[in-house]
């Protein structure tokens, strides 16, 4: 287990290094010159040069990258900004705020949104799928299957405003979505995020309902399930103790892949409900050609996905004893 985690950590570092290099290169391959954005309309070449130097863009790419990388480990001194202690991701071109600090401020919003929606997606998706499989061929199954098709066809930017209009503006059953720090007010945190969670998970839940139902139907025809019946286990036990375990394996696999998509969905949801999360930072960074911010956000996103996929792998071993981590 420790060996497994160590190897995964090493792998994660490599992945993050590759992602940062690619982001770096892509940024410079873009046709926009970020220094121009800071220059007035009538831009003197000398001013542009000065800005370039201040941003550290007068150096060769490799050197720039090296400085950036060293900054994460040891901190660095940025001309015009002053000291930047480790882990230093630089200062935003656009707002001059430290990138690391900005991300740390916003991260809980996105984390809450994603983890909450992921739990809801998995929980409700699997639950509905189980109900559908249990009732296979009967009305409840058809209702669950039909609603999963509807759910899969919905879009966040459509459901979001619609639900907000209904539940917040018209009936007032939910507070307007906002981020309330969990540590200060857990109940407020929960109620204010309820709507974003619902919107984000509705879109993904449908998939899990469909998959769970299909997997359960498949598992119920397996030999070991027949053995459970031959032992006199009641159908309920056969369903929940035996077939369920087998059905969860592919679900967890797909879930690991879907986490990245969910994170993307979280960014759209943040925009829909004006939540100030990492997604908002990312979009602004792209719009402003804000290299340090872009690198920081990308790195944090990738890091989160890598970390979650390790969790999924561990989960996998918990469900299936034939899987050994190592």
């Amino acid at each position: 287990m420790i060996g497994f985690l160590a190897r995964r950590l090493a792998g994660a570092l490599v992945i993050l290094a590759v992602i940062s290099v690619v982001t770096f290169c892509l940024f410079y391959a873009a046709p926009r010159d970020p220094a121009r954005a800071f220059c007035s309309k009538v831009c003197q070449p000398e001013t542009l040069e000065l800005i370039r130097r201040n941003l550290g863009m007068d150096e060769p790419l490799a050197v720039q990258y090296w400085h950036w990388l060293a900054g994460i480990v040891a901190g660095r001194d940025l001309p015009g900004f002053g000291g930047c202690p480790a882990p230093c991701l630089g200062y935003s071109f656009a707002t001059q705020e430290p990138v690391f600090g900005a991300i740390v401020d916003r991260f809980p919003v996105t984390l809450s949104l994603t983890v909450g929606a992921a739990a809801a997606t998995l929980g409700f998706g699997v639950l509905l799928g189980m109900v559908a499989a249990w009732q296979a061929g009967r009305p409840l199954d058809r209702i669950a299957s039909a609603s999963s098709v509807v759910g899969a066809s919905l879009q966040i930017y459509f459901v979001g405003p619609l639900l907000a209009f209904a539940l917040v503006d018209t009936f007032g059953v939910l507070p307007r979505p906002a981020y309330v720090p969990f540590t200060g007010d857990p109940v407020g945190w929960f109620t204010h995020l309820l709507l974003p969670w619902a919107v984000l998970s509705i879109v993904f839940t449908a998939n899990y309902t469909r998959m769970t139902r299909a997997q359960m139907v498949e598992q119920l025809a397996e030999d070991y399930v027949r053995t459970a019946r031959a032992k006199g286990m009641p159908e309920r036990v056969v369903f929940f103790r035996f077939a369920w375990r087998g059905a969860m394996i592919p679900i967890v696999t797909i879930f690991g892949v879907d986490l990245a998509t969910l994170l993307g969905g979280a960014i759209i949801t943040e925009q829909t409900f004006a939540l100030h999360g990492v997604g908002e930072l990312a979009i602004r960074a792209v719009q402003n050609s804000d290299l340090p911010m872009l690198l920081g956000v990308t790195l944090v996103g990738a890091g989160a996905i890598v970390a979650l996929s390790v969790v999924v792998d561990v989960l996998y071993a918990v469900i299936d004893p034939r899987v050994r981590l190592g």
Partner: protein
Amino acid sequence: MTTVPPPPRGPDPFLSVRDLSVRFSTEDGVVRAVDGLSFDVEKGTTLAIVGESGSGKSVTGLALLGLHDPASATLDGRIRLEGRDLLPAPRGTLERLRGDRIAMVFQDSLTALSPFHPVGRQIGEVYRRHRGASRREARERAVEMLDRVGIPGARSRVDDYPHEFSGGMRQRVMIAMALVCDPGLLVADEPTTALDVTVQAQILDLLSDLQRDSGTAIILITHDLGVVAAAAHEVLVMYAGRAAEHGTVGEVLGEPRHPYTWGLLSSTPRLSTPLDLPLSPVRGTPPSLLDPPSGCPFHPRCDYTGLAGPERCRNSRPALSPGGGAGTSATGGRHADACHLAPELKAGLRPRPPAHDRPVDGPLDRPLDRPLDRIEDTA
């Protein structure tokens, strides 16, 4: 392996199956997987059900436990265990009987055991379910059962998962699980098919030891006549969902009457004949049960229709005679078969007359160290 003397027959057989039929509705039509099957099994005896793939052996076994999905299978006839009718019994009653009074051992122990639970728990939960035992009692019982089926170091292996056992050991686990509540009837569906020959012999020995200790009635589903000769008291040869021949193991293997049984016997290798002598398999392929042949279901593959009258074989379905199958028993020995050939003809045509006249009744009293030779004493 020791001979188990069959107990005297009571008025009511332990298990009696009458006119059992199992039909499956499929998109292509109705499959008559089992069609009018009747047999009895007494306590402490073993009935082997033999036949090719698709002859309805396993379907019969699953029917005894009520394991067919009522949505797709229709069962008719009567299955009576210890005087209790099983077919009309509600699901809850069957669930309580399964694992407790009737147990089943499946062929492939790797897929038939849950890969997600330790073996001790899989065994113990049967005991908990039917005997209301506590977790600790169930665990103790699981250790005891693992020990009884000959798993070395049972206590240290009780928390292992099925994939951590070898094939033979896993099959022992299956047997331990089936016998944990001392069932009256054990249905063993090809319990040794997936195992190598020495392990096969060990498993058959184990079954017969356990039978001797507890008097369990065993239905042994197999296509291996060597297994039949070694382990069964009675044999029911099935073809296309029907009984082709039924009698004691000595009768069916020693004086086989049905051409299909002859075919099965001559397609089995023996060590006493030259090894380069080609085996003669039953020609043709098993019939489709969607559209079984008219008359005698075996007639398209039979070499003797000329002698029995081709018209008759094609048009009229031979009854199991004498006795209609029901009522034969290990002691009563009413050897019956379903064929239009005249009895004298059958005695003459039999490809391999018995080597000697010793009547063989029940399993052979000999170790199974020469597995391929097992049939020799009977055929």
